[in-house]
């Protein structure tokens, strides 16, 4: 056995009383085993310690980069609700702060609508319909929604007072509910056309628009249907009315149609863009029509719906939007991204 120092050790060993042989040996053994312990420790560490990489943790943001939010509605209290990819419904308050609402589906939701009193409905892929009756705290999937064998994407849902709702979609889906979305019935038989939007007129009038420039008008809540002449063949994506007779429909390739007789006849309006248009809405507060579409396009016109203008929200943001929602002086747009537009400046929510 090796010793650190024959000069220092005896001093160590005899420090304190009484000096005994046993104690001296103990100190000697302890001290001289230190180097061997170090050698052993180094060998062990060298051979067996293999640090493993530890990554940081990442919290997924509520609004993810790949999310599309196709639908938008005013939230029951304040702010808005948006619905989209993976069954997400997100509440966004007026400051732009987002928080996710729990939903029972991961199918992409295409549209959302909210009645007064905290009731709401959302529709989406695979015929999924969700409803809430407590201002979004709990969403439940509705059972027994009529289905097609072929395709079941529901693209829009429109509501009216007393719990009325109409949902449009693929394979001629035109579903109606009178009980805040709890039960649904077909208004028309299945057919190979996609209905993209519907308007519930005051009274019981219905106007439905769809693929290849097709429009349906019903004066009696869907019992009988008429097919007006339409001056275009482009698919129509959205329709909106400001009263029982005056309405606008928009569609692909910059198509804007207007009617002044509750949808019985349609005129094409002039517009200086060829971009696809996906939505149009009547802004009651500012007495104007507003619409949105592909490549960051906006369109607007006065109440007469004849003086259409168009432009880009922002030269550096060419995202598409499937919905516009006028709120006060501003407009919310949602689609590939979500943001507010005040007519001059486009403020997208940060992703």
């Amino acid at each position, binding site marked *: 056995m090796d010793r650190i120092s024959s000069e220092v050790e005896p001093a160590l060993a005899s420090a304190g009383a009484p000096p005994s042989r046993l104690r001296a040996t103990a100190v000697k053994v302890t001290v001289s085993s230190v180097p061997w312990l170090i050698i052993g420790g180094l060998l062990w560490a060298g051979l067996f310690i293999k*640090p493993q990489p530890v990554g940081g943790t990442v919290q997924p943001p509520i609004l993810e980069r790949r999310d599309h939010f196709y639908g938008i509605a005013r939230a029951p209290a304040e702010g808005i609700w948006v619905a989209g990819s993976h069954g997400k419904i997100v509440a966004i308050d007026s400051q732009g702060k987002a928080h996710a609402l729990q939903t029972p589906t991961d199918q992409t939701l295409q549209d959302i609508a909210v009645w007064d009193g905290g009731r709401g409905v959302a529709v989406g892929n695979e015929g999924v319909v969700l409803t809430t009756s407590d201002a979004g705290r709990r969403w439940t999937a509705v059972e027994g929604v009529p289905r097609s064998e072929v395709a079941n994407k529901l693209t829009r849902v429109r509501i009216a007072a007393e719990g009325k709702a109409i949902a449009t979609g693929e394979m001629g889906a035109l579903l109606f509910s009178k009980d805040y979305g709890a039960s649904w019935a077909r208004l028309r038989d299945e057919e190979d056309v996609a209905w993209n939007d519907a308007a519930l007129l005051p009274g019981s009038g219905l106007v439905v628009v769809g693929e290849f420039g097709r429009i349906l008008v019903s004066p009696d809540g869907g019992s009988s249907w008429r097919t007006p002449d339409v001056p275009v063949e482009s698919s129509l994506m959205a329709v909106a009315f400001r009263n029982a007779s005056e309405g606008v429909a928009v569609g692909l390739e910059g198509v804007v149609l207007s009617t002044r007789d509750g949808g019985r006849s349609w005129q094409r309006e002039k517009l200086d863009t060829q971009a*696809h248009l996906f939505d149009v809405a009547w802004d009651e507060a500012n007495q104007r029509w507003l619409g949105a579409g592909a490549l960051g396009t906006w369109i607007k016109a006065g109440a007469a719906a004849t003086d259409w203008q168009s432009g880009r929200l922002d030269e550096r943001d060419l995202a598409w939007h499937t919905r516009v929602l006028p709120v006060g002086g501003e407009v919310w747009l949602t689609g590939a991204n979500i943001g507010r537009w005040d007519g001059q400046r486009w403020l997208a929510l940060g992703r």
Partner: protein
Amino acid sequence: MIERIAAFCMRRRAWVAGTIAFLTVALSWFALHIEVRTVFEDMLPSRHEYVQTHQKFKDTFGGSNMVTIMLEVDKGDIFDMEVLEKVRTLTLGLREVSAVNPFQITSLASKKLKEVRASTDGIETRPLMWPELPANAEELAALKQAVLRNPLVYGPFVSKDLQATLITVDFIDREVDYTKVFDEIGALVKKVENDRVGVRVVGAPILYGWVEHYLPETLKLVAIALALTLAMLFLLLRTWRGVILPLLAGAVSATWALGICHLLGIHFEPLVIVVAMLITSRAVSHSVQIVNRFDDELEHIADGSETSRQAAHVALVDLFRPGMVGVIADAACMAVVALSPIPMLQKLTLLSVVWVMTLTISAVILTPVLLSWIRKPQGTAHGVDLAPLLRKVLDFGLWMALSRFRYVVIGCSVLVLFSSGFYALKLKVGDANPGSPILWPEATYNRDSTAINQRFDGVDRLFVVVGQDGKEGLVKSNEVLQAMNRFQRFMEVQPEIGASISIADVVPVLNSTLREGNPRYEELGATAAINGSLMAILESVSEPGDMDRFVDGQAANGSITLMFRDRQGETIRTAMARIKEFVAANPLQTGEWQLAGGLIGITAAMNEVILASQIEGVALALLVLMIICTVVYRSTVAGMLFMVPVIISNTLTFAFMAWQDIGMSINTVPVAALGIGLGVDYAFYIADRIKEEIAIGTNPEDAIRIALHSAGMGVLVTASVLILSTLLWWASSLRFQAEMGLLMAIWLGISAMSALFVMPSVIYVFRPDFIFGRKDRPVLAGLQPQAH
């Protein structure tokens, strides 16, 4: 034994010197022809899972040598004939660059970027801008619209603000010569660059091209550092021998080492010039020690014809053991690095071990042999004498060791050891800053890299492969497409990952196109049947090679490419951990996940290897050191004692690296490993001299004084000279070299300080037997060679 070697060297001094001279001349021919270049393949730990995936798929899904070129305009957008013309010129010009993989050039002007159009006649794909540029304003507007509609181009290849566009080009890894590629691409860029259109270039070949571009500057720095070293030695030692012999020792060992390595087929990496400098500084140190000892001995020997020979003999005998132990400890500690599975580190280790071992000849033997010929040993070459000043420093060390202050010294050392050790735990593996740590943040390369990352989603790539060999068409299956999509969504949550792309991104675009551009269909099909038919349509409209970026020839394997905004160690670790988390949670019924290729993939592999061997490297190097000391001094206590300066200099250096955000990477590992052996050299000379003095009966106080004034003087001279000359590196255009120079200076400083101030105190306080001799045994019972 040592006595016999010394006697032989002195007796046959002409023969010994002649042999060394002959070998040096012979090896110099080989040394001059050593290849100076960076071989990329050498950096890869070839058995690592990631590297195997990378090697298997790099030709299909993109290698690690990808170069990204960005053209940008300040005003207007890139849809302008002048800019597009330049894109085309570059795209065509790149085909002529050496080692380019012509199938891996992607830009607006290449055949690979296409638009898919659905019309009444069916579906067709058309290259965006190939072979011809737009002929008129209408076609230009149409091109712009086509780009805007295509999410695979608008974003990945054309910036969101339309002011920049990318050209990416990949190389055939085994043929790529960085200097050539750098020069050729540089010439191409110069042709198109003007006031309006800026060009930025990044990628591994460009980065290492820059390193080689600075080679002349580096060599100039080496020359200046050398000149400064010699000038300082001349000033401090006041003799020509004190200048010429260390220079000769350094030159001989460099010649031998480079010559032998050339014969062994090893090339020289420009980045490791720092290591070369470090080893040369060891040669100078050892040689100066011997010259210094020689000068000391002269004072004790009366004038006579045999003075030089006798003094040289004594110097050789006395310094043989500490010199040899120093050299062998250096070499052995470095050899531990060879356990790393990275070929570059193995070759570098071989180079440095050979180099260090040559010091046994060049410094330990050649210097005293040449000293024996000195004709007029007494006298000085100039009148400036700084020795009194240096002696004051040494006296301070002596006072610290002998006064009560020695306990304070030991206490402070322990404190420094623990606090720096604790701080050193923050040391990170991998790059600690965005951009390349090899260059300064304001270097062109790093500015280019930042600019591209600002406009695009990231330049550095990692690919993960999903599939299985032989399972034709597996990637087209619903399960794989859905899994890819989920994976991308999961990964993109990490903010440093700018974007990701796979075949599962192409399908939604096609789906939406087939639905008249309706974004409500910009998603994967709901069923396997829909996805199957979408894939079939995609195949029917694409030409061979179009889908190469996403799937292999049989669609058995598909890639998901993640774009990284930086390659910091932390970013990569987090990404890899998340990939593994996802893979564990999402096993595939058929096929498997294969990690991970691309520059980030192999960087991850290198980082993991370095991390795993970090403890191993330090622990085994310390173990080797301890064993060597134990064997040489026949005492385990000696091993423990010499670990003190080593551990202090290591923890302090690691703490410094952590503080300065210098990460452990393939470039810093060898320097760090060298440091372990380095810390101990100076301590050997001091401790050995104390031991010798004690052995001839000097009392401990005098022994320490003599040791500090003789060996300590050598330590002080070499350390101060070398610290000054390594600090010169701070002027380097390569940040890596500047930081490593600083690191070396710190090392030299700390090890000199611990040898001069800490070791004497420790020895004086603990009185280890291997130095002081056992009290219960005769003092001279050890193996001490007796010189006197």
